Every structure is written in structure tokens, then in C-alpha cells.
């Protein structure tokens, strides 16, 4: 009789410990699931902040390129030897566009340092609208992963050959690729 009671007690004890084991295992499973979800969230946030950083650097590059080109003496126009702010000489623009081409390797590489992978165009908008002139083109092969940022700056365009009405308004479009 005593032996039977003992056996039942031992059986019940092992069942209880089995249940406790299962409980511990379940708690661990839930814990690891929560940790995994947290890790996924954290990595997503980190990915977002890295992308944001990349975008910021990319935008800074676009601004730097636009500042570079606006104040380039190769393109700037002048009035009685005084440089005019945000103004391009139309003849200088034409000459620049014809020289800085991929076919002219040395000249192209020289400006590639400053302009990187970008496309720079100038289009006249006022008083008459004219076709855009591409003054630098180093656009990469466009794929799904290629993104670009466009900065448009209003500029004065001077035609020094004219006696009156020398200035017109143009838009300098700088498209930087990443």
C-alpha cells in the first residue's frame, strides 16, 4: 500500500516537473520571439538612418556642385571687368560645352573631379524660350537603383555681342546621380 502511494507521488512529481519544463521552454520561446522582433525593428531603424545619412551627403554634393559651377571663372560674365553674380556668358557656355566632352579625355577628367556623376544644362526661359544646352554630361547608365536629385537655379545669361538687351534669364539645372 505504502509502495503504491510512493509510486503515484513520484509519477505526479515527474509530471509536474515536465509541465514546469514546458513552461520554461515556452517562456524562452516567447522571449526569443520578442528579442527577434526588437532586433528586426532596430535594424530597420538603423537602415533608415543610414539611408537618410546617404541622402543628406548626396544633397550636400548637389549643393556643392551648384555653388562650384555658379562661381566658375570659365563661365562667369563680367561688365567692365567686374564679375556679375550668378551670370553666365553665352559664348563661354558654348565653348565650355564643346570642349568638356568625354571625347576630350583630359578636359573631361579635369571637370569630373568637381562635377562627378551629374548632368548640367542651361536653358533660356525669358524673354524667349530656347532649347537647353548641355554643358556637362556624365550621367551613369540608368537602372532601377539609380536615383537623382535635381537642383534648379535661376541665372542671368549675357550675350556680349548685343549692344542692347544683353541679358536674359536662364535656368541652370544640375542633376546629380547616385
Amino acid at each position, binding site marked *: 500500500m505504502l509502495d503504491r502511494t510512493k509510486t503515484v507521488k513520484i509519477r505526479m512529481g515527474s509530471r509536474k516537473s515536465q509541465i514546469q519544463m514546458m513552461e520554461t521552454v515556452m517562456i524562452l520561446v516567447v522571449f526569443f520571439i520578442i528579442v527577434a522582433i526588437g532586433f528586426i525593428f532596430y535594424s530597420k531603424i538603423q537602415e533608415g538612418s543610414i539611408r537618410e545619412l546617404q541622402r543628406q551627403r548626396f544633397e550636400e554634393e548637389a549643393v556643392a556642385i*551648384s555653388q562650384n559651377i555658379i562661381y566658375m571663372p570659365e563661365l562667369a560674365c563680367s561688365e567692365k571687368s567686374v564679375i556679375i553674380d550668378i551670370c553666365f556668358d553665352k559664348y563661354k557656355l558654348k565653348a565650355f560645352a564643346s570642349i568638356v566632352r568625354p571625347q576630350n579625355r583630359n578636359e573631361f577628367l579635369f571637370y569630373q573631379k568637381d562635377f562627378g556623376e551629374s548632368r548640367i544644362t542651361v536653358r533660356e526661359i525669358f*524673354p524667349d524660350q530656347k532649347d537647353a544646352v548641355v554643358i556637362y554630361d556624365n550621367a551613369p547608365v540608368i537602372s532601377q537603383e539609380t536615383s537623382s536629385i535635381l537642383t534648379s537655379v535661376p541665372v542671368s545669361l549675357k550675350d556680349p555681342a548685343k549692344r542692347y538687351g544683353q541679358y536674359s534669364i536662364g535656368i541652370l539645372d544640375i542633376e546629380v546621380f547616385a
Partner: protein
Amino acid sequence: MIKRAQSFGKRAQLEMIGIAIVVVLVIIGFLFVLKAISKPPSSTQAGFVRAHIGQDVLNTMSIADAGCFGIDMTEVLKACAEGSTIDCAEPCVYFDEKVKEVLEATLEEQKLAYRFRVYRIEDPPKTAGEALGGIFMEYGGCNETSLNRGTLIIKEKPGMIVVPTNAGDIKVMLEVCSNPY
């Protein structure tokens, strides 16, 4: 029996504390995620464009050929203020028309809201209609009402030029408006 009940109560208390800690951790995590998501991305490039475009447009426009026998836009504005004539049209109407063309091709093309005003310095307008020769333009709802309500704000320094004329100094202002959020 009493001892058993006491130990059971203690265990329940401990589990309650555990749950409370888990809830607090989840709330902290959630707040962290919410903060990261709700942070609006700042744009260096857009900020740069907004900060400069007003003044750049006015500078380029002031010396630009008006398309009227070689005179520039400043001369058309002078004629408008002084009540003199130009060969193409009534100067205030012509100036208004040409400015609209320029602003459409620059600011409106980039979807930037703006307010353009021309007025005598000694006689600033109280309402839009009082501007010099009625030269007042707005785009994207950038007007007195939206600015007073705060639905749009002027963050950047406005573009401004002063044109001296025989009828007093004329102020040309171009303000770029932006969303407050």
C-alpha cells in the same frame, strides 16, 4: 496550508512585477520607434534652394531684357512708377505680364509658394490691391490670410531690391513661403 498560500501569493506578486517590467519595456520600445518614424527628413538641397531663389530671381529679372526694344525690366518698372510710357504697352500692365511669365517658369515650376509685391517705400500697402499699379502676385495660397492663420510661413529672408525713381523709391519683394511642419 497557510504557508503554501503565502508562497503562492508571493509568486503571483513576482509575476505581476515581471509583467509590469515587460509592459514598461514594450512602451519604451514603442516610443523609440514612434520617435524615429515621426522625425521629418530635413532636406539640405531644398533648404538651399528656398534660401536663395527669391533673391536670385529678382537679381536676374532686374537686369533682364524686357523684350521691348532693348529696355530692361527695371526700366519698365520705373516707367510704371513715374507714369511715363514705353513703346510696347502700358508699362504697369506689361511689367505685371512679364513678371508673371518669369515667376511661372521659375518658382511655380518648382512648386514653390510665393508672394510677390511691388510698392512705394514711403507708402507700404495695407491690402494687396493697394500695391503699386496693382502689381501683387501670389502662388500656392501664399497670401495675408494663410500667413496670419499660420498654414504657411515665411522661413527664409525675402528677396528684395530697391529701385530709385523720380516718384520715390520702389521696393520689389519676393517671399518664398513654406509649410510650417
